[in-house]
């Protein structure tokens, strides 16, 4: 059996469900007598909402097309392009998740190389015409070609593998650095994926040298073919400059990756190693090293957690578990916001931008209202200056946001949210005042981060219209909304809140009315254990770095500083009242707040000795390992309790909340896949195979 037959035998069962991207071949007579090009169109037969991907069958299809092309002697060139709006967006992730053994993983890696590299090794030149989104393996197809053109309309060019926990290992780590230089290659392969998977647009990709020519979308293919004919005819010569600076680029990137991950996720490090090798490795050596990296990563749990997390963010976030019928949602034509502080003003801007309806802010005095409205206008001005809004749009938004000292302005509002001081009595009073003014179908929402919704609604005439609508700070940036249903909240109100959340372009998770909901409860438990360890005598720096191996976005005390010790203390107290046996209140933390310190760090990010001294005095120090174990065990315990209490529908929702609300990383799958794979969760939260390599 040939190598290909082996791979086919090994992979065909795993790829039974593959949506196959076909390689349609058509002869094109090039302009100017440049001869015939065999033009391959990649097309899976669906429209752009289901982009082209590569699984084993798609790779075999492309291989078949290339075999036929290779046998011909009448061709001047071969071209590859995509279906409308999409070039190809990489490997079939569903197929990747189905792989079980290293042998299978290695076969997929080698098969990809075997097929793609033919594009660069034919006796005739090859051209990729990147007409639409090109990601991962899709971009690698283009990189294997001799030349590339790209459309200025392409919205996304990226190698997102490191974001998921892979490397661009079908040639990307070897070809891209040589094409555009190591520093820019690292930007695409490592930096962008680690920066919330940032995408590059067609023009930027061209400017980076990923493509040799840029054409407008209106007649992209025609002009690309004309250009290809000119290249073949020698009228256009493409320069390929030599690149240097490899050692510095790789060293700089290693520093950056360490800062972000502290060694917690293997993929970016493997990618860096491969990029470093690309300077001297032969094609065979480089591709073989990619094969090994892919095989290792594909059979590692970090990638599986990444794929799981990606699916949560892409799918579960868009269809919240337990949501009522969306048809029940009421139309929102005007929004009221109680309070005109910073958070309320941020909300006002967001509501106005996304809902495009009038938004009224109220507060206790005109000065506060003016300050809030001025904040919104200033932010609109900044967006205008940056070109993110046109003058007309800015005028429209400005006219939408107004302030009023009287809640009477809410009379015709459909959705009123309060963002006043986090105090139950204050909030109850505010809601009662609002209810006295608004119509019967107006939804009342609270942005509380920790108070009981049921308690808050107890004295309302119609508590069924109260819903929790918990934003995270900064409101415009953080993607999560915890939508809280109280005991009385009815389906129409919940549906309305979810619809508003969707229009705000937030990902909503439905949460039961429980103290501090999901993200703050877990972060507070997490923080509480770390602070308790310090209170007991563990050196602050030891505790602070005990969890570095997880690659969380922030160390515990850095997080405390961001949130503000006073807020942290307040939430800790709320949770302590609810669950005194698991949530303590640190006296030292209270002293830190009393001392008016912004945290334990000075503005230059060094430790503030005075602040650290406030935590001194304990006599039962723990090791870093003990702190880590204690924190993780506490998280596992708390999550188990939350699931038992029905705070959310499933562990998946916990993970979604931690990914979107706390920025916890994909390689942990949020957190439960990590607790499962590290053996801390007993029993497991998720069955094997869901976010780990199938047994």
């Amino acid at each position: 059996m040939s190598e290909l037959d082996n791979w086919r035998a090994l992979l065909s069962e795993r790829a039974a469900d593959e949506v196959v991207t076909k390689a349609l071949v058509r002869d094109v007579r090039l302009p100017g007598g440049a001869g015939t090009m065999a033009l391959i169109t990649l097309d899976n037969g669906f429209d752009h909402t289901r982009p082209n991907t590569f699984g084993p069958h798609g790779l075999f299809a492309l291989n078949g097309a290339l075999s036929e092309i290779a046998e011909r002697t009448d061709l001047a060139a071969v071209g590859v392009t995509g279906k409308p709006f999409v070039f190809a967006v990489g490997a079939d992730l569903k197929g990747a998740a189905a792989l079980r053994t290293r042998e299978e993983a290695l076969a997929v890696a080698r098969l990809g190389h075997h097929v793609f590299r033919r594009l660069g090794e034919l006796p005739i030149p090859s051209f990729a015409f990147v007409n639409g989104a090109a990601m991962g393996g899709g971009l690698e197809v283009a990189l294997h070609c001799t030349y590339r053109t790209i459309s200025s309309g392409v919205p996304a060019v990226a190698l997102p593998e490191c974001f998921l926990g892979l490397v661009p290992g079908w040639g990307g780590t070897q070809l891209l650095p040589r094409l555009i230089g190591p520093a820019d290659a690292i930007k695409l392969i490592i930096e962008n994926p680690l920066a919330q998977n940032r995408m590059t647009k067609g023009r930027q990709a061209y400017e980076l040298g990923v493509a040799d020519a840029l054409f407008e979308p209106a007649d992209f293919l025609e002009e690309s073919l004309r250009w290809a004919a000119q290249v073949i005819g020698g009228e256009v010569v493409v320069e390929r400059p030599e690149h240097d600076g490899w050692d510095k680029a790789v060293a700089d990137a290693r520093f950056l990756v360490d800062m972000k991950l502290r060694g917690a996720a293997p993929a970016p490090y493997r990618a860096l190693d491969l990029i470093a090798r690309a300077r001297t490795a032969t094609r065979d050596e480089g591709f073989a090293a990619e094969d090994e990296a892919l095989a290792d990563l594909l059979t590692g749990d970090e990638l599986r957690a990444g794929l799981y997390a990606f699916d949560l963010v892409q799918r579960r976030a868009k269809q919240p578990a337990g949501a009522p019928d969306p048809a029940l949602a009421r139309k929102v034509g005007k929004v009221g916001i109680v309070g005109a502080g910073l958070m309320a003003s941020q909300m006002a801007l967001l509501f106005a931008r996304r809902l495009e309806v009038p938004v009224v802010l109220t507060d206790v005095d005109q000065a506060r209202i003016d300050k809030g409205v001025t904040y919104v206008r200033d932010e609109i001005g900044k967006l205008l200056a940056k070109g993110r809004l046109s003058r007309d749009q800015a005028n429209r938004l400005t006219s939408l946001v107004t302030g009023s000292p009287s809640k009477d302005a809410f009379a015709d509002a459909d959705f009123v949210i309060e963002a006043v001081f986090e105090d139950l009595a204050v909030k109850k009073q505010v809601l009662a005042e609002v209810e006295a003014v608004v119509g019967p179908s107006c939804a009342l929402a609270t942005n509380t981060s920790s108070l009981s919704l049921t308690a808050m609604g107890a004295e309302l005439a119609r508590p069924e219209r109260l819903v929790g609508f918990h934003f995270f700070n900064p409101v415009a940036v953080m993607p999560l909304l915890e939508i809280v249903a109280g005991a009385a909240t009815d389906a129409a109100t919940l549906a309305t809140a979810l619809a508003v959340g969707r229009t705000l372009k937030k990902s909503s998770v439905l949460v039961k009315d429980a103290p501090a909901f999901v993200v703050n409860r877990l972060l507070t438990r997490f923080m509480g254990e770390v602070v308790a360890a310090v209170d007991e005598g563990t050196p602050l720096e030891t505790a602070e770095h005990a969890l570095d191996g997880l690659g969380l976005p922030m160390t515990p005390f850095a997080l405390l500083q961001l949130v503000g010790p006073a807020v942290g203390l307040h939430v800790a107290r709320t949770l302590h009242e609810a669950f005194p046996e698991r949530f303590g209140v640190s006296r030292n933390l209270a002293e830190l707040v009393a001392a008016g310190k912004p945290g334990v760090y000075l503005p230059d990010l060094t430790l503030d000795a005075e602040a650290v001294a406030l935590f001194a005095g304990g006599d039962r120090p723990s090791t870093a390992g003990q702190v880590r174990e204690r924190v993780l065990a506490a998280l596992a315990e708390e999550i188990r309790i939350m699931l038992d209490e029905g705070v959310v529908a499933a562990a998946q929702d916990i993970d979604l909340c931690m990914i979107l609300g706390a920025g916890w990383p994909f390689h942990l799958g949020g957190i439960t896949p990590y607790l499962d794979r590290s053996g801390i969760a007993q029993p497991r939260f998720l069955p094997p195979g869901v976010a780990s390599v199938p047994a």
Partner: protein
Amino acid sequence: MPSSRDVVFVDGVRTPFGRSGPNGLYAETRADDLVVRVIRELIRRNPGLPPERVDEVAIAATTQIGDQGLTIGRSAAVLAGLPKSVPGYAVDRMCAGAMTAVTTVAGGIAFGAYDVAIAGGVEHMGRHPMGEGVDPNPRFLSEKLVDPSALVMGMTAENLHDRYPSITKERADTYAVLSQERAAKAYADGRIQPDLVPAAIRTAEKGWGLAVEDEAPRPGTTMEGLSALKTPFRPHGNVTAGNSSGINDGATGCVVAAGEVAGELGLAPKMRLVSYAFAGVDPEVMGVGPIPSTERALRLAGLDISDIGLFEINEAFAVQVLAFLQHFGIADDDPRVNPYGGAIAYGHPLASSGVRLMTQLARQFGERPGVRYGITTMCVGLGMGGTVIWENLA
């Protein structure tokens, strides 16, 4: 012709013409995309013309719905990336749509309303079969305003054979063979290709391709072959698919400008507009339309038919060309008439054809600087003819 300033034809291009139908070149290609391609090529070929200097985009289509609707002159201008400040509109005079787009913007230029305009036409007869969505007023027939045959173009061609009994099927077929031969020679001599703009084409089944040349010509057409064809419009009639233009898809466009502005921009105009005229005839013999329109245009220009050195006459049907020639005493095979062949070979995507005639005339002018005047003329459904007289600037 009274005019305040000269109007010139600067440059014209077209997409290759395809055969309509599920296997045709443009089976799954949008009509507006073809227009976009033409506009962009005109801008690209005339770098002296800043896009913002285009004052109007007039695009004709007979069936103005779907991808030929939405005021196609404006929508195609936006899709082509012309500055949003450039306006556009849609034109319809059936087969003479693009010709009317040219004469209409020319009138505006002469009057001083525009300096430069793009005019053209499109017809995707595969996506929009002739007569799609029409709703003829019943009074046409109840009051006998037109003969029942008037709305079926093939029948009007048969009617023309009745009016000119000396034009036999054999003469028509002979003319058709000549048209195919001349088109094949023009292709072989490279006269057509320079003014074609290749168009990307895609089908779900075959993927992307490129249309680079006309699909309709049938080189090697013989009298024997033609004699075997059916006469679908009349039993034992004279009109066949072989001596008629086909059912086609394609788009054309040209840049028309005030002479002084073309000079200012450094453009190289190829022809000067001398006069134009449209005329009506009985709808059931619409093919004679070019005769009165040409007579009128000649009169307006103060010219005689003998002053005309080149004729580009649309070959909707061979009989209609022959009627025109017979009327003016010109031989069926006169070398001044359609020297590159005509619509019988290239096809006739209705509203687009007028500018194809002009583009071919301009190229012939370039080859023959000794010729001073030429005409483009065509018959139009519902009984009309249109004629434009041009002066050679080569």
